[in-house]
């Protein structure tokens, strides 16, 4: 680098001739989502070949639907991981939110929307408690949210059983406000003869919002720095504590949103649902290029990571395999993604 200093050539303000040395391919590979895109293409081609039903537009719509249910949560989880924290309670927090909404409005016979709002408050509170504990105690978020995960799981199942004597919440489709809430959270429409669930649209919108926040706003700058080097970030005036608590609350918000979608789609919710999903969200984010150590990643990457899950989840069904193979794929994908990401990042860094 010294030669750059010794040769003060006429300063070209833009279009520096030295930038061209990096090939477009290396530039693309240097992006966090590069590995995920490559993986998604391979998996799409794989199922396209071996599972003929996979090829239709209708089945692609259902792939996208499954993707959106993962992707809605993978998006804030990706932001949180870029901010340097984990949330293991995210999977059951979705169920907690849905149970809260349905039990509250059913037991007190309120308008469905009242339950929805109470659930929102609860979800934000769970996120806040996670974040606040992590910041105040300095204990790794892995442990804090692991505790929260078991607490929520216990409450979900025990409370539901105490109140309803069943393992699921009561059907709330008869409540006032149910149909309007269903329209908002769980409706579907038809494009060119293909049924499209509205959650797909929400998912895409949230990915765009998250990407905008990350790349175009000062909050995005703060998120990257809070994960990359919190001590330095604090030293230059970044409100690291507020950023991290805010990220946990964003996870809470999306857990509420996802919970409402599930609730109003099925009218009822299983109390043991959601366990294990937290790993799917985290894996989607990692497959999408988020570093486990924070400070690096993208929302688009997590979306593609979720798409990979959606394709595998449905592809296995279309291929007529035993659905239990899904678990195997989850593990294999995670391993493959980590290896590929490491390899690509090394190559990209070498070519700078």
């Amino acid at each position, binding site marked *: 680098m010294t030669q750059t200093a010794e040769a003060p050539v006429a300063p070209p303000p833009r279009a520096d001739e030295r930038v061209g040395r990096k090939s477009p391919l290396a530039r693309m590979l240097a992006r966090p989502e590069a590995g995920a895109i490559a993986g998604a293409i391979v998996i799409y081609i794989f199922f396209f070949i071996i599972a003929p039903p996979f090829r239709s537009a209708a089945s692609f719509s259902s792939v996208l639907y499954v993707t959106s249910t993962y992707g809605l949560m993978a998006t804030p989880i990706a932001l949180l991981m870029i901010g340097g924290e984990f949330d293991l309670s995210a999977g059951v927090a979705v169920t907690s939110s849905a149970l809260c909404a349905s039990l509250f409005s059913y037991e007190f016979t309120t308008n469905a929307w009242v339950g929805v709002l109470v659930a929102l408050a609860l979800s934000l509170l769970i996120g806040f408690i996670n974040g606040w504990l992590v910041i105040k105690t300095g204990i790794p978020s892995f442990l804090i949210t692991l505790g929260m995960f078991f607490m929520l799981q216990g409450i979900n199942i025990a409370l539901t059983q105490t109140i309803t004597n069943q393992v699921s919440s009561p059907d709330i489709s008869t409540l006032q406000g149910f149909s309007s809430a269903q329209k908002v959270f769980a409706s579907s429409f038809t494009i060119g003869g293909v049924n499209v669930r509205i959650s797909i649209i929400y998912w895409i919108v949230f990915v765009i919002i998250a990407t905008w926040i990350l790349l175009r706003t000062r909050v995005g700058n703060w998120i990257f720095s809070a994960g*990359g*080097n919190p001590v330095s970030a604090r030293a230059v005036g970044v409100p690291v504590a507020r950023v991290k608590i805010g990220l946990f609350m964003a996870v809470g918000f999306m857990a509420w949103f996802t919970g409402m979608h599930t609730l109003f789609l099925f009218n009822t919710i299983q109390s043991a649902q959601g366990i294990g999903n937290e790993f799917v969200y985290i894996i989607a984010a990692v497959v999408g290029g988020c570093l486990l150590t924070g400070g690096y990643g993208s929302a688009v990457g997590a979306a593609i990571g979720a798409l990979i899950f959606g394709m595998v989840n449905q592809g296995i069904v279309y291929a007529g395999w035993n659905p239990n193979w899904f678990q195997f794929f989850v593990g294999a994908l995670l391993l493959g993604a980590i290896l590929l990401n490491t390899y690509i990042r090394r190559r990209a860094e070498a070519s700078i």
Partner: protein
Amino acid sequence: MSTPAQDPPGGRHRATADAPSAGNGNGGVPLVKLINAGKRYGAVIALHDINLEVGAREVTCVLGDNGAGKSTLIKIIAGLHQPSSGTYEVEGTPVRFSSPREALERGIATVYQDLAVVALMPVWRNFFLGNEVGKGLRMDIPAMKKMCKDELLAMGIDLRDVDQPIGTLSGGERQCVAISRAVHFGAKVLILDEPTAALGVKQSGVVLKYIIQARERGLGVIFITHNPHHAYPVGDRFMLLNRGASIGNFEKGQITRDELTGLMAGGAELEQLSHELESEGGAAAEIGRSMEADVEELGITGQHDAGTDAASAPARQEGSSHP
């Protein structure tokens, strides 16, 4: 960065345009001045009777070995600690900083060894971190990139691409980005904590060049180092620290590089070491003899009087910049 309530007149974003004309060399009011400053931590005296000043367009070098009290000195100037005795003046008025933020608001910026940069983030994001430009949440990215590039160019750093992660820059370049960031956000005095310690010969040269650049732009620089070869070419004043006390305060004209090196090395200690090595015999004795020759050549013989190594400093040291 917006605390207008307690902003002193002049505030930030000023030093870059035109430097305070006051302290041109030795004449005017120094930007930072310590008078008989000391620091105790309980029973431990970390520093005592320190006199130090830096004016605009000046580089004051603080030289000292490990444990000499350099970091305590930095912490006092940077506002992290208060001196327990003596006075700390900024532009002629006594101050008592209760936080680094307050020091920063008076234009005193510290570039620590770890630089406070986030390695994975692009250069321009690091440059503006905590001071983003734009309306509301939205950042004005093209303007930020351009300002970053221009500011770095003004310091003579011609980066290929301000979009590359700052971790891909060399140590020297990273140091320079941290320096130019402090300059851009209104620093009048830069405190550089061992900026060349982890660098190779060439890289150190680059950093020294930027120290000169900063001085040319009207800043006062406090350059902390243990390397007299780095300090001598850029320094206007030199302050030597040993065991928490100043063992010499020199203007550039009053001391040669060899004398500075000798003082830093501690002539008496070196001589004693060479005697010890000689008595070992064999290869060690060989090294010891050549060390003795070096010590004599540098003219820093310690008069076999290791206890008072301050006395080995030339007598003229006291005639210099003391108030």
